[in-house]
């Protein structure tokens, strides 16, 4: 909306200058503006994989893992969606002997407004592997991201460091 308004003002200025083009040189007048986002995403806790057996890496606390937690701070109500996608691959890892099967999920962990955010979880919409939450209230919402990677063919994960990335996006309506 704000971008559209600025564009309209720029076009009107050009028309006015064109009408007086006979007696003067043309000039371009820049108009700038900054829009600060009303939706800020913070990583509250980077997850950790546990390794309960040779062919499984998981963030489940009971199996030695730690889920990732991401926080959405919204200062404008009913203007954004939170779209969160658990990881579906390793961004870095040793050479793997087989394909990896991914499972995971996202859920609302904590809210700052029970009345306005208490039903975020039941109202969420899933698009494939992505969960979409409609952020109808101002405040902070903490989302917990779980992920489990299982090596195919009953093979073991090679020793080394593994990193997977979940994606959290604030999408304006």
């Amino acid at each position, binding site marked *: 909306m704000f971008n559209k308004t600025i564009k309209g003002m720029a076009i009107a200025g050009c028309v006015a200058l064109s009408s007086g083009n006979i007696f003067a040189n043309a000039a371009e007048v820049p108009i700038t503006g900054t829009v600060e986002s009303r939706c800020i995403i913070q990583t509250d806790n980077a997850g950790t994989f546990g390794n309960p057996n040779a062919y499984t890496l998981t963030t489940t606390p009971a199996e030695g893992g730690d889920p990732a937690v991401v926080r959405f701070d919204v200062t404008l109500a009913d203007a954004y969606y939170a779209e969160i996608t658990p990881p579906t691959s390793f961004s870095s890892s040793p050479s793997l002997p087989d394909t990896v099967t991914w499972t995971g999920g996202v*859920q*609302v*962990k*904590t*809210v*700052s*407004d*029970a*009345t306005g955010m*208490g*039903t975020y*979880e*039941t*109202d969420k919409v899933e698009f494939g592997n992505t969960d979409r939450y409609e952020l109808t209230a101002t405040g*902070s919402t*903490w989302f917990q991201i779980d992920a489990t990677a299982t090596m195919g063919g009953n093979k073991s994960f090679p020793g080394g460091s593994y990193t997977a990335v979940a994606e959290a996006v604030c999408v304006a309506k």
Partner: protein
Amino acid sequence: MLWPGYSYSESITPYTGTTGNAAQSGLNWSMGDILPTPPGLDINGVIYNYTIRKNTNDQVDVYVQNERANGTGYIFREHDEWRPGSLDGTEINKVIPVVPQNRLNWGDGSIQVEGEGRVEDPTVIYSYTVDPCYDPQFSPNCPGYQRPEPPETPVVDYSYATDLTFVRTEEDEVDVDDVYQEEQDSEDAEQEESDEKEEMRLEAALAAADNSALFANALAQSQILAAMNNAVGMNSYYAADLPGGSYNESIVLVDKQLPENKRGLRNGFAQQLLHEEMVQSQYNLK
């Protein structure tokens, strides 16, 4: 007079802080047990967190609140409305700024749950600011500080002394005759003193003539005193007691024969001759 004064300076800069978990021991708490002691403490925020336990289709209302100290309602009350559809196990985390109000206005706190549900692992923390100069007498650097008045001199009651029985008895024995006699004695003493002064002037005039007599008297007096002192000193010897009954000879002469003293013999003989000569000489005078 010197009065003790402060030789140190306290910081008068306002500072902030937070309490511990007020709900650590239950859903009701007393602010007196939570807040620190300074009187100039204003609470300016409440931070709380808990996990709701409920069935998805139930409605649960949770109130985190503090009564007013004077009992007229609530000074702070936050309502969490967990509507049907909100999931069991969801946490809530709130930071609520409040208009700063002095600790004296804050009454007991509590978490009240209405509906089929409960709260789990509650945490309630109060944030506050402290103005050390709330009491201007906290430090001489505080605005409005007044130098304290010196302490009053304590009044000691000495009346107990006159309450003693023997003192009262002495007072009772004083009568008018005694008072008159004391006055008469005082006048007599003054008269005597005047006479003595006159005599002293006369004595001074005769002093030159009587110096020798005075000296003799003084010498005689000193001799008497010396004799008295000697007598006093001898008494200790009279009273002395010699221990033991006999004293045996302790010196033994080892020589068997003592030689005649020839010089003594000659001298003795010469004396004898002289004696006889003198005796004979008296007859010769006749």
